[in-house]
């Protein structure tokens, strides 16, 4: 029982850091680079992806014994595309401005390999509860990564976070940070920092064991 609980906790936690979809698995780079030019856009994109991932994982897991393996990819895409369309309309109903900012990237959640990847690698082989935990973990990890990128880029590129100005008016924004190239810079630096931390942790673990 203890072992089982540890496994389900791990199913959730692995997506947050150890197998983080963005920083470790480097999946779904299109939205990661394209819509993280402000914290609001990044958060919305992250939550939309989390929702689609959660719903598709649940559906795929429930139907995993019913879908023949020959047509599984087509079926998964159909499920994912349906939820993406739902999210697209709901965001339009909530705020047109938000929908305008995210542009085509909401529809492109369909082809986010994170979602199809989790359906294929996890949900099609595990019961619904584990799949929910997996989706929540991966989705939160993805949202967290996007939010990091969005906050850093908005802060440097526009002097604000979530639209709140944090620097004095004399601050000259680095426009490059909210342009596409800024996405690559930020991602590169974040991955550098995260790999460095992981290396140090691994090193100190090895030392304490020795």
């Amino acid at each position, binding site marked *: 029982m203890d072992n089982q609980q540890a496994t389900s906790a791990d199913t959730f936690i692995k997506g947050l850091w150890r197998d983080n979809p963005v920083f470790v698995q480097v999946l779904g780079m299109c939205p990661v680079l394209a819509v993280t030019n402000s914290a609001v856009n990044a958060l919305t994109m992250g939550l939309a992806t989390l929702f689609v991932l959660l719903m598709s994982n649940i559906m795929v897991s429930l139907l995993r014994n019913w879908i023949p393996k020959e047509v599984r990819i087509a079926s998964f895409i159909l499920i994912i595309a349906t939820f993406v369309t739902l999210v697209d309309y709901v965001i339009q109903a909530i705020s047109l401005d938000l929908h305008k900012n995210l542009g085509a990237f909401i529809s492109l959640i369909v082809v986010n390999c994170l979602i199809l990847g989790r359906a294929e690698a996890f949900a099609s082989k595990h019961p619904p509860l584990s799949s929910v935990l997996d989706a929540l973990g991966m989705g939160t990890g993805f949202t967290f990564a996007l939010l990091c990128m969005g906050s850093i880029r908005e802060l440097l*590129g526009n002097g604000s976070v979530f639209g709140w100005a944090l620097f004095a008016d004399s601050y000259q924004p680095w426009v490059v940070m909210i342009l596409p190239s800024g996405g690559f810079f930020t991602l590169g630096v974040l991955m550098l920092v995260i790999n460095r931390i992981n290396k140090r942790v691994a090193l100190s673990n090895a030392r304490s064991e020795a």
Partner: protein
Amino acid sequence: MAAMTSSLTALWPMYRSLVGLGVICTVCIVAVVMVTTPAIKQNQQDAMHRAIFAVLPGTTTIGAFTYDSGADAFSTVVQGGAGSTLYVGYDPQGQLVGVAIAAEGQGYQDKIKIIYGYSPDKQTVIGMRVIESRETPGLGDRIETDSAFQANFIALDVRLNAQGNDLVHPVELVKSGQKTKAWQIDGITGATISSQAITDMIAHSVSTWLPRVRDHIAQLEQPHG
């Protein structure tokens, strides 16, 4: 025969899964579209109204007219009707403040959609808002955010000539800070193409619309046609 039966049995689960999912997904999407459409329509209308109030300062009520170019006539808007729409703003006394005209054109990245307010009394453009654009953040998108650029459209001279078929002075773009005449638009440094796009859209749109407004001004002055 045996081979055929077995291939049919193998096909059935695939057929069932794809068609079944397809039907379920279609039903879900149709349901969501039906539920969200009123809210989306409302949002679009609100955004349009906010833009109209912004480009026609002093307006309290808005009327909408459709122009039929074949008949050269304005009529009150029919829901879902064809033709290009023109919005008219009235002040609390029911006097005409100005007309709001939508225009669009190619920007640096993608199509830009704007709406601008025109005052027939002053014969000037009195406000401009960008409704849709994907211009470069920090450069081209300053057509929306730069207050110095927006100030070009508070009193932009678009007087019609005596025949009423063209402008006395065509609207033109000048380099940032070199505006000397009321019909010139001060461009944005680093966003020449976006500034030029806005200038062209307004120049083109006023030459089409202003003669129509002038010819039908009596009708437009009456709220609700």
